[in-house]
């Protein structure tokens, strides 16, 4: 009787959950990937060197120190602090973001020449980060709930076994129709992402070019985003990457936005 009941339950659960379980698994992989890519450690620091390369090869450099601190659980709130070294006309500028999944960011910009803190309207997370091919979402993450995820296939990319996840935005009107992500089965880091436009043509490619283990956390230390339509690309190198430095809450305040402590920005 008991066995029969268990069998029934299994059959029922298969019936109800099986079409779903594949999708749930895909979402789980995306969650794990975000955790590995954007949430490791309690805090994180890196010197970020961005090279913006135009179609004709002309280069622009954006150099900044990026600090991040997690609040609450993985996938939850985060605070970001950025200090700009280059280009020179924005040197000493600082930028602070309070990121809330499912809600608009709070963003503040400090302009040293005017000794002024400006709050910035931040509705569009898909807009470009400092003119690069990366969007704010690419830097700080996209809420997994905004997409439906499915495992397209599993395959080897280079020497890495990967899940290939197809993520389709629930909301229309995005600049891409869907995205394919190759996620390393071991580290859960994204190795490659392909963005397809509304004609289902590939137009943007993210590549994790170098990975290293820092304090036990697998970390993408070199990445690029190429826009195949415009020919523009951005190469990003993380230097001096570190985790769990004990970044205090007080760093993410107006006081230190105006006067960033040397020990955190160097």
């Amino acid at each position, binding site marked *: 009787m008991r066995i029969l009941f268990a069998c029934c339950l299994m059959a029922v659960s298969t019936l109800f959950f099986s079409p779903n379980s594949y999708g749930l698994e895909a979402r789980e992989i995306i969650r794990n990937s975000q955790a590995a890519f954007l949430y490791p450690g309690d805090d994180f620091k890196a010197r970020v060197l961005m090279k913006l390369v135009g179609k004709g090869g002309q280069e622009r450099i954006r150099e900044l120190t990026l600090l991040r601190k997690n609040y609450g659980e993985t996938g939850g709130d985060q605070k970001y602090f950025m200090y700009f070294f280059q280009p*020179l006309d924005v*040197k000493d500028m600082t930028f602070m973001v309070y990121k809330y999944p499912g809600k*608009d960011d709070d963003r503040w910009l400090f302009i040293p020449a*005017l*000794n002024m803190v400006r*709050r910035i*309207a931040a*509705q569009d997370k898909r807009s470009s980060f400092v*003119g690069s091919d990366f969007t704010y979402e690419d830097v700080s993450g996209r809420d997994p709930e905004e997409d439906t995820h499915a495992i397209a296939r599993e395959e080897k990319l280079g020497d890495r076994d990967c899940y290939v996840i197809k993520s389709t935005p629930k909301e229309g009107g995005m600049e891409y129709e869907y995205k394919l992500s190759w996620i390393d089965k071991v580290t859960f880091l994204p190795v490659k992402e392909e963005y397809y436009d509304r004609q289902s043509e590939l137009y943007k490619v993210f590549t994790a070019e170098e990975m290293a283990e820092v304090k036990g956390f697998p970390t993408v230390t070199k990445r690029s985003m190429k826009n195949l339509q415009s020919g523009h690309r951005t190469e990003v190198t993380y230097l001096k990457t570190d985790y769990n430095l004990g970044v205090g809450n007080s760093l993410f305040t107006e006081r230190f936005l105006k006067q960033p402590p040397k020990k955190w920005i160097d």
Partner: protein
Amino acid sequence: MKIVWQIVFGAALLFVWFPYAWALDLSFQGFLQGNYTADTAASNPDGGDFKWAEERAQLQLDVAKDYVQLHLKTDAFYDHVDTDADVELREGYLDYVAPSWDVRAGRQIITWGVGDLVFINDVFPKDYEAFFSGRPLEYLKKGVDGVKAGLYPDFASFEIVVIPFFEPNNFPDPARFHLFDPIPGIDRKEEEPATSLDNVEVAVRAYRNLAGFDASLYSYRGFFRQPSALPDDSSAPTRLTLLYPELSVYGASLQRNALDGLVSLEAGYYDSREDRDGADPMLPNSQTRFLAGYQRQLWEDCTLGLQYYVEYMNDYSEYERNVPPGFPREKEWRDLVTVRLTQLLRHQTLALSWFSFWSQADNDYLLNPEVKYNLTDHLWAAVGGMIFGGEEESTQFAQLDENDNVYLQMRYSF
């Protein structure tokens, strides 16, 4: 004399610190700049055709050791309009930073409030001539010579500014700008508040996050930075004294994400301490000022900012009763609408922007379109225009009607 003092001040700061130089964290930066602004409506009152024409070099030096930092920012420039070279200490201060407080002493720029080119609780000196002449925006702000202390207990943060040396606003030069003058051709003498203990200006700001709002409270005790003209004889004046009346300001501001954008609110009460009953028409009456602002991203790299500002003159009936015949009559309510639209293009290296003031009460306006392009990471150039107009000859922007200009700014940063 002022320049000599500035150089001495800068050199003294430098040499006090030099012995420590081997253990110091030193950094240099700066720029070379050309700034040329040509009249488009009429020549200057003195016959010239340029509001501004200069080459300028800025050097910034930062020296840090432990908790102390020295910051010097000095400009040297050659002005083709007055054919004159000069040196200007833009900023020069020492910082001391402790865990829960800090202090900054010296010449420093301070910006308060949430307004975009509309100032209620930003009671610090401004250079309106720089703004109207098409100079880079940072030159709208003048430094104050004073001490600022920051206190950071858990429940709120505080900024306390003490200014022993009065610094007035800088208004357009009558040789370069056509301006309204109700009593033309009369000698005038400027009298700044004397440097004394009684005249020390004090400004305090308390701020914290309050239910998702960036909230600030402000108070200021000091002087109006725009002079009032006092005639020696009101019926037949032979001489005007330009005085800076006593002023206190009490205000507050709030800012947060709302309505799919960013909402800003600010208010302030201007207590004109020498004319509290409003009976002296030569001194400003007390005022109440309000500002509401809204900013949102319309689409990628395009931001729209709207502001509505209104000021109310207290005791208006007293003012009306006493204003001399023939003098332009100020209004009880004066408002301003500002629009800022910015579109960034070409990976945020090209900026098209529009800024405008329009007053419904005064029926006058200022329009400021601009194109700015970062040619390389080191070099940018901006071309823009300042267009003024309005109905009456005495209002803020209408009186500048004949001063329309186009400007070119070029800067090489190193």
